[in-house]
């Protein structure tokens, strides 16, 4: 794999620009992906933050879902927030008919922290990135409520009150990796900390 891999950013809608900037700063050549033909020749794909309902409806209408499903078996993909939902096998609290790319053996609960007024930022310890803590921004964010054994948990958040569907003091999962698929509930692209994007570019390089 070349040292400057070409990484696509799914450009249906959302914070495409921020992801593109962070990927470029992390050493990737970036391509916006809107059409099926834009997928040819990319070595990795980022599915940005945005509205997952919109993204899934438009991906389907523009005949991108099936090609993306195929491609997710071949190249690394990283989804943040709405992107995590798009990669999840199962989505709860969304539209019943919301189609996803899938592949990541998790259940994602949409808007698990409440509505926009409940959105927050917080420092998370993420072993895979080392120290210092990673400043994570959660916006109408999903939670990972179930993971299959194949899934590696990268980050959790401790919640003392009512989070998602249960009352518990559990560690709730907010970042995962399963082979070539990476996903976060939060938005590393909205900060200038490049470690998550560098981690993904490294995944692409070594794929």
């Amino acid at each position, binding site marked *: 794999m070349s040292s400057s891999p070409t990484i696509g950013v799914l*450009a*249906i*809608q*959302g*914070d*495409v*620009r*921020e992801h593109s900037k962070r990927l470029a700063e992390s050493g990737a050549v970036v391509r916006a992906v*809107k059409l099926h033909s834009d997928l040819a020749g990319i070595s990795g794909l980022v599915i940005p*933050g*945005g*509205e997952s*309902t*919109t993204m899934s*409806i*438009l991906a389907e*209408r*523009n005949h991108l879902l099936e090609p993306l499903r195929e491609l997710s078996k071949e190249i690394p993909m990283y989804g943040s*927030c*709405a992107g995590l939902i798009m990669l999840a096998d199962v989505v709860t*609290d*969304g*539209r019943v008919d*919301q189609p996803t790319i899938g592949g990541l053996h998790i259940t994602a609960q*949409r*808007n698990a*922290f*409440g*509505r*926009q*007024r*409940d*959105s*927050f*930022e*917080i*420092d998370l310890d993420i072993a895979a990135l080392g120290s210092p803590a990673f400043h994570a*921004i*959660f*916006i*109408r964010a999903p939670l990972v409520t179930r993971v299959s054994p194949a899934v590696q948990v990268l980050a959790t*958040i*401790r*919640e*003392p*009150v*009512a*989070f998602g569907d249960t009352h518990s003091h559990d560690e709730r999962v907010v970042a995962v990796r399963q082979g070539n698929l990476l996903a976060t509930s939060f*938005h590393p692209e*909205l900060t200038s900390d490049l470690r998550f994007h560098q981690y993904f570019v490294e995944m692409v390089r070594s794929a």
Partner: protein
Amino acid sequence: MTSQNDLNAQVATTRVKRGMADMLKGGVIMDVVNAEQARIAEDAGAVAVMALERVPADIRAQGGVARMSDPDMIDEIISAVSIPVMAKARIGHFVEAQVIESLGVDFIDESEVLTPADFTHHIDKWNFKTPFVCGATNLGEALRRINEGAAMIRSKGEAGTGDVSNATTHIRTITSEIRKLSSMRPDELYVAAKELQAPYDLVVEVARTGSLPVVLFTAGGIATPADAAMMMQLGADGVFVGSGIFKSGDPKSRAEAIVQATMNFDNPDEVAKASRGLGEAMVGINVADIPVPHRLAERGW
């Protein structure tokens, strides 16, 4: 619902408010007056819906004082869709904004489409956890709103007309004023701030970055896929469509077409495809035929 004290989490910061607007980029936000329209908008691919009692074309036709929507109607729309819901408060009416926030609306539009409640002051938007979007006809107005806490700006057009000319003027004005600031020497920015009637620090920030510190959408008079694509090519991050959809002959097809054209704004083949077979656009009023005191875009100070 989240109490994150034990977590060192900060709720409703400027970053999460502006970040929420970032997630809407490249999308279409549609005016809806009931749950059925909200579902049509969501199915068409809208990134958010704006809940309001009457679309601007009806406010214009019926006259009278236009106010915040009935909370029941807003609740109904919130439960009908999974996408974010916005609602409008009158300019300066901070209690309407408090009510809308308490309903759990995701974004508040302090809107000139409603009848202003205060002809001097806008709402102090820093006091709210819910982010605000405000209209602007020029850069100075945009920066004054940002200074008051707006997390998103929409350039104003003349709402409820189906005439895109005002929206064109205002998005061009804002983007060209930004370009002008970027070309200035640092010692010229003091007078620029004075002339824009905008805070110096924000003027410096815009000059340095070449863009607003928040997302810039455009609104008012957008009625066709080509209108939406033109706004995107002129530098908008996304579009609001009000009367243009549900006052047209075939709202479902038109909503889908405007979404397609916004996503593919730089691809004329796709915009052409989206423009086919949509039936009648909203009838429309030429902005020039509206007496000046009846123009909505001029509200805001």
